[in-house]
């Protein structure tokens, strides 16, 4: 559904973790949230440059579970829309 050249475009403003569908993954780029929350996310493995996979959606579609750096973390949709990612359209080997 997206054109191929968009795959490599960094800092695309429309691309947040919240825009990815279940099963899709992206490379973490930036956080748009208070510093303390961003730091907490980074402690849990959400470090810019790492790959995140939308692992599953909880009952009711919110929160969703993300797999990053070997762990799984649940986030609400609104927070995941504050995390910029570069989508990867051919899912790479899963982060274990």
């Amino acid at each position, binding site marked *: 559904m997206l054109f191929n050249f968009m795959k490599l475009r960094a800092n695309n403003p429309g691309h947040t973790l919240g825009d990815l569908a279940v099963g899709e993954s992206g490379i973490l780029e930036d956080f748009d949230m208070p510093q303390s929350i961003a730091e907490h996310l980074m*402690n849990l493995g959400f470090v810019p440059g790492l790959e995140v996979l939308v692992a*599953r959606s909880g009952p009711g579609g919110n929160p969703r579970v993300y797999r990053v750096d070997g762990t799984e973390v*649940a986030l609400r949709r609104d927070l995941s829309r504050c995390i910029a990612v570069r989508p990867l359209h051919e899912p790479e080997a899963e982060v274990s």
Partner: protein
Amino acid sequence: MSIQGAVLVPKVAKGSPVYKTVAVVGPPNAGKTTLFNRLTGLRQKVGNFPGVTVEHHTGSFRVDSGEEVSLIDLPGVYSLNPKSEDEKVTVDVLNGVMPGAERPDAIILVLDSNNLNRHLVLAGRVIALGLPTLVLLNMADELHKQGGQIDVLPLARQLGTPVALVSAVTGEGLHAVANFLVATPHPPEPLELPIFGDPRHCREWAVRMGSQAAYRPGATPEWTRRLDSIFLHRIWGGVIFAVVIVAVFQTIFSLGQPASDLLQKLLDSVAVHLGNILPAGLINSLIVNGVWKGAGSVLVFLPQILLLFLVIGILEDSGYLARAAVISDKVMAKVGLNGKSFIPLLSAYGCAVPAIMATRTIENKRDRIATILIAPFMTCSARLPVYTMVIAAFIPNRPVLGPVVGTRAVAMLSLYVLGFAMAVATAKALKSSVLRSRDVAFIMELPPYRWPKWKSLGLRLMDRANAFIFRAGTVILGVSILLWALTYLPMHNGQPPAIADSAIAKVGHFIEPAIRPLGFNWRIGVGLLSSFAAREVIIATMGTLHGVDPESHGMALQEALKSDLTPAGAIALLVFFAFAMQCASTMAVVRRETNSWKWPILQFLYMTAVAYVAAFVAYRVTLLYWY
């Protein structure tokens, strides 16, 4: 060669320990507590540092020579950035500036060997403190089972500290701890430390450390994913959640009640025995009616309380509670809270005190205060004895839904719903007014599913049992003896007065005008007064009051109660207990956790006012429509 000296610890642990106090540090979910329990066993106790709310365990570890080293289990932390309270405590203790805690001479750092790319960042921070450090890569059994591997020696060289691959569950590799404690102390001599301000750099450093050690993490266990695809399923997830919650309460009632009944029989027969062997008179009455009936009437609830903590402990340790938080998040959001409030609120069905301490995981301060304020509305185990007794005395058991669900079960359930509904209404009111908060972040780490460890469950249950028995043995015993004494005063010619002339009756009659609108007489009034120390005390009080009264002396307490309350008054009493904040321990813990008297006092006034008004309404409505 100094690096070698620092890295290698002797193979055999002989000689005296070189450290007095050693801090155990590690991130959450790295198995730190299991390890601490394994090392110290029953030689541990819970404590609080003065002025802070963070609970910590201290214990002692015995080296081969028989000498002991004191271990402090510090709160789980991801970094040493003193922003959150847990991390501030850890940093302060490690720097030796925490009042009431000795500066540790060494550190045992516990990391999850399956998550080293994340956890080694903390190692960098800890090593930079310069204290002799032993790095334990825990959960080696899982690492191997899931196809991961690591070479500890290169990692030890890089970090400049001894490193051991261990499993707190199987005990594998744990001799390293004893070896470390008797070896010559060496400050760490790392080859390279990360730049701490830059998370990206920190992680790159951690990955480099790992790759030097040929680190390959194990795959997330397949069954965790499979279980999550059921437990977090769009439809089944919610259904299973409901079944689990119902099962929790069902277990407590169906197993806890017979156990309590058995204990009651035992305590009663001891009371009869005591009454027979002791010479008749004042001492006999004090021991049997004051002490035994008072404290014993509360002790019988120990089985139910332990069962509740056991079930919550199993859910927590298995990893399901984290999923329950995710599932409940959507509903909690409706009252302005988030899924993290679910865990404390579920524990509040056991006891509000640990529940309020569990609110520490809620990052948002306003959400945390709101959770603290509503937690005591949840039907805690101290209300259970009161409900059970009053319901058994006043509500005839008729079948409602088949032979299993009777009127008594419905009454009990309604009281649970009543407390819950008031909590929801209060949360909604608070979160849309004084405690409104904008950016709420719900961030929940989902640990892999694990089998709960009986040992750590057992240790926690012992903590709870000790706290409960301690309370029964001090506060409740004290109140019982005081009440007994008041029923014996003023003496006339060495004879105790008739109960209606005693000092206790005077106190009861003094407050009677305030409680008569609720349908309570002076005896219930005395019970209510005493229950503000702790709810279940009312039973001990009623037991003592009737125990010394010749008219109701021989009756079971339930029968005796019928002389104090009309059915409408009984309903009012139940409603009062559902809402009132009658618990000195809860007030103390709220004061400690919010660091001011403002919240506990407001909470007390609010809950008591709600309880009074609701009890009045319940009394009037019952009188009007039923009795």
